[in-house]
């Protein structure tokens, strides 16, 4: 066990899910051909001016809400001045002095069951730079990314283990995803995590080292452990930690030095004169956050109460589309509904590569289906038979069943007639039951379903059978 205590802070950049860029009308999306989502503003052409996309502010306010941040009521943007080819104007428009959110937190639950509050220092809005692709002889620039809106979320140096860091990022990602703020796809760069790690034997912090380029949340944990070990080895062998920026290499699972931190980096910040100060009042905050959906923890509670097993709960939460879909059906049997969505329906959707809203399974049809399965009005076997029709036809469940000759008889008198005929036919089984073999009822029920090809309502048939047997 190491004598050193780790101190960890995390900076996360997330691309906001707006249609357009933060200061230009160009589209903001991923995967377009290079330099197609570009206009004169993104290129930093002389004479162009930034026009703030208010959707950016609205999404950022949602993020503030789910991260418990205080909203700056009077905020402005600042210019961060430096030269680099990926920075078309020679400055980045960001928020240095009045970040939109300050002093928030999120709470995580550790493996041992204890809770830990992770403090967030601030969250600010800024524009992304363009993407450089370095070749052997030259470098190419893709301006599609220039001006894509970002939020940067900076924690206090308040984490002590890589577990806390991983839990924080998992939770953060979940919240931002559910708030509809960002896609949070690390592999596409829409979520980027940088860590600051220092180690110390005393209360005083050690020298912090930044690690960038970490390609997954679990690798953040790996990078922190590697970095702490690397620093410990240096200190133990009498060395000194130099403040630097390193990058994570996912092949060797180690960190590699990129550059030594320049002393007194001078970004010459000053308020962006082309964007007026923005006043944000309670009404504006409410108007833009009251459509927030329920966050994952609240949903977990509902699922737990409904009796969904823990494994399935996490499966649902991990698939926001399914969870969002379920939000419409909180009043029906969630176990049945979630089993369908995680099971047969999920297989159908995967197989056919469609989303549920593109099928013919309307909300009312789904509700009907779950209720009938719940009340045993449809057997699982019949459900499997009609699944494709449910998804691909514009017909009600009754219409599908009758087309297939699978209409369930639910008229009690009619059922009674059919069941007594079958009981007559299988009198030996009936006798077995009557002489005390209770399990014989199961066999009789099987015969009823077989003889009627499952055309009777199972629940009613069972009820009628028991009545007749016990007469």
């Amino acid at each position, binding site marked *: 066990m190491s004598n050193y205590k780790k101190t960890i802070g995390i900076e996360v950049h997330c691309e906001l899910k707006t249609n357009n860029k933060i200061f230009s009308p160009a589209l903001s999306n991923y995967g377009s051909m290079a330099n197609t989502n570009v206009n004169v503003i993104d290129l930093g052409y002389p004479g162009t001016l930034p026009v703030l996309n208010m959707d950016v502010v609205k999404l950022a306010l949602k993020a503030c809400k789910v991260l418990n941040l205080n909203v700056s009521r009077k905020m402005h943007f600042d210019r961060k001045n430096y030269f680099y080819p990926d920075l078309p104007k020679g400055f980045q428009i960001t928020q240095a002095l009045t970040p939109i959110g300050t002093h928030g937190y999120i709470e995580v639950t550790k493996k041992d069951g204890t809770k830990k509050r992770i403090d967030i220092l601030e969250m600010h809005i800024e524009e992304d730079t363009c993407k450089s692709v370095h070749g052997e002889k030259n470098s190419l620039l893709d301006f599609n990314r220039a001006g894509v809106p970002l939020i940067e979320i900076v924690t206090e140096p308040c984490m002590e283990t890589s577990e806390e860091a991983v839990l924080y990022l998992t939770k953060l990602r979940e919240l931002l995803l559910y708030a509809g703020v960002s896609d949070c796809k690390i592999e596409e760069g829409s979520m980027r995590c940088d860590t600051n790690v220092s180690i110390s034997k005393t209360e005083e912090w050690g020298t912090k080292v930044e690690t960038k380029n970490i390609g997954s949340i679990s690798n953040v944990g790996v990078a922190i452990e590697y970095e702490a070990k690397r620093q410990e080895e240096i200190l133990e062998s009498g060395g000194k930690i130099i403040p630097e920026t390193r990058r994570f290499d996912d092949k060797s699972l180690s960190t590699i030095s990129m550059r030594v931190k320049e002393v007194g980096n001078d970004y010459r910040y000053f308020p962006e004169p*082309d964007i007026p100060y923005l006043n944000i009042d309670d009404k504006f905050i409410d108007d833009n956050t009251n459509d927030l959906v329920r966050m994952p923890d609240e949903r977990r509670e509902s699922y737990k109460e409904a009796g969904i097993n823990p494994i399935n709960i996490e499966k649902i939460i991990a698939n926001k589309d399914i969870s969002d879909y379920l939000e419409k059906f909180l009043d029906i049997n969630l176990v049945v509904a979630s089993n369908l969505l995680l099971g047969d329906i999920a297989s159908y959707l995967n197989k056919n590569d469609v989303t549920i809203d593109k099928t013919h399974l309307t909300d009312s049809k789904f509700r009907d289906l779950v209720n009938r399965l719940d009340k045993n009005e449809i057997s699982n076997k019949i459900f499997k038979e009609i699944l494709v029709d449910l998804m691909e036809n514009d017909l009600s469940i009754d219409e599908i069943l009758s087309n297939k000759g699978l209409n369930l008889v639910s008229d009690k008198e009619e059922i009674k007639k059919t069941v007594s005929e079958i009981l007559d036919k299988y009198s030996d089984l009936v006798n077995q039951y009557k002489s005390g073999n209770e399990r014989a009822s199961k066999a009789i029920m099987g015969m009823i379903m077989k003889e009627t090809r499952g055309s009777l309502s199972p629940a009613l048939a069972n009820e009628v059978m028991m009545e007749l047997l016990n007469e």
Partner: protein
Amino acid sequence: MSKYIDKSLNEIHEALVKGEIKPVDLVNECLDRINKNNLNAFITMNDKVIEEAKELEKMEVPKDDLFFGIPIAIKDNIMVNGMLCTCASKILSNFEAIYDAGVIDLVKEHHMLIIGKTNMDEFAMGSTSETSYYGTPINPWNKERVPGGSSGGSAVSVAGRLVPLALGSDTGGSIRQPSSFNGIVGMKPSYGRVSRYGLVAFASSLDQIGPMTRNVLENANLLNVICGKDDRDMTSVETNEDFTRLIGKPLKDFKVAIPNYFLSDFVDSEVRNKVLEIKEMLEKNNVKVDMVDINHIDMAVILYQIIAMGEASSNLARFDGIRYGYSYPDPENLEDLYLKTRQYGFGNEVKRRIMVGSYILSGENAKIYYSKAMQIRDDLQKSFKKIFSEYNLIIGPSAARCAYPLNSGKDDPLHCFMDDILVMHANMGGFPCISIPIGFNSEKLPIGLQILGNNFDEATIYQLASFIEKELNLDLEGGKVSE
């Protein structure tokens, strides 16, 4: 050749409506004068202007559009799609605009004909147009004297009667001072009145585009059509008024203030006396004129140096040789590309201001200088606002002296700032301010009066300006070129 171009805008318009002349005739008159008299007013001519003028013949002249078919000159820091936009700098000497500025959209909407792009100080940094990469434009009143700046080419083109209208830009007097040196009317509108979209930024919080014309009425009319809210400039504002509406109205209960500072010792005595003559004339016409003191009025030059230089150092960072403009052809590495592109691409005055601005925003200096300057700027605006609560307008000389000899400020970088000492208050407070000619000095050089109004009160400025213009009835054709 008929001299329609010298007639008033109303008369030209009438002749167009009646079919006496066509837009192309006006264009030819302008081009003829420009070609015969080399005032170096233009950096780039519009080689399609004849074609564009003939295109207008297909349309009926709209009776309600005073500007249909009227030639106009545009300062070369305003984007006109398809034309070079050099800002009089080597670094943009090959830069062709690929979009129209907000004002150019309006100029084209009203079917004005863009004759060319006018000469100026490099990136509008200077007071004499001598920092231009393309040589200094010539003051048509006296070739040995500076034309003023930075909108020197625009001022010269109107004073020389090469064109009836021009657009300039004003960050610290760049419309008003050359207007004053050239005996024309130049207005810096309220900050936000005219869209800055497509104006190459010098100091974003001070820059404003404005009209430069032969007389007050035409100036107000031109402002009427170039102003307005532009969704591409967040600092622009909606305008729903006619700036000519008070012209000719009596100056009832009118009160005007003259700051003592505006008549200090540094102001040339001939200029000072001319302003005092105006004071007397106004008083004779029952206008109350008071000498006043205004807090912080002496701070304007210092504030300008800090705010304008700071913003400029950031605004000009984009000229790095990577995407457009001059790029040093054979750099050793990235840093070398930046250094050499900017070393050879920018002139000395621009480099000086970028260096000062970078220093001002550097580290702790941002607090010591820039933030402090912004506070004092607020106070300065408030102390002017206080005057406007008691007086309709503030007047004073546009420049401390008349056009001075060429090259006189060469070895003294502070020289030109001190010369603009009277005009920067309007930019600091975002106030509208006009310069109008009020006479001549003993060397027959024009003297300008500036009239400063409260924010968005251009109409009252035009009212007083037009009254003075009418009372003086000056012959201002002394700068007109020969034919």
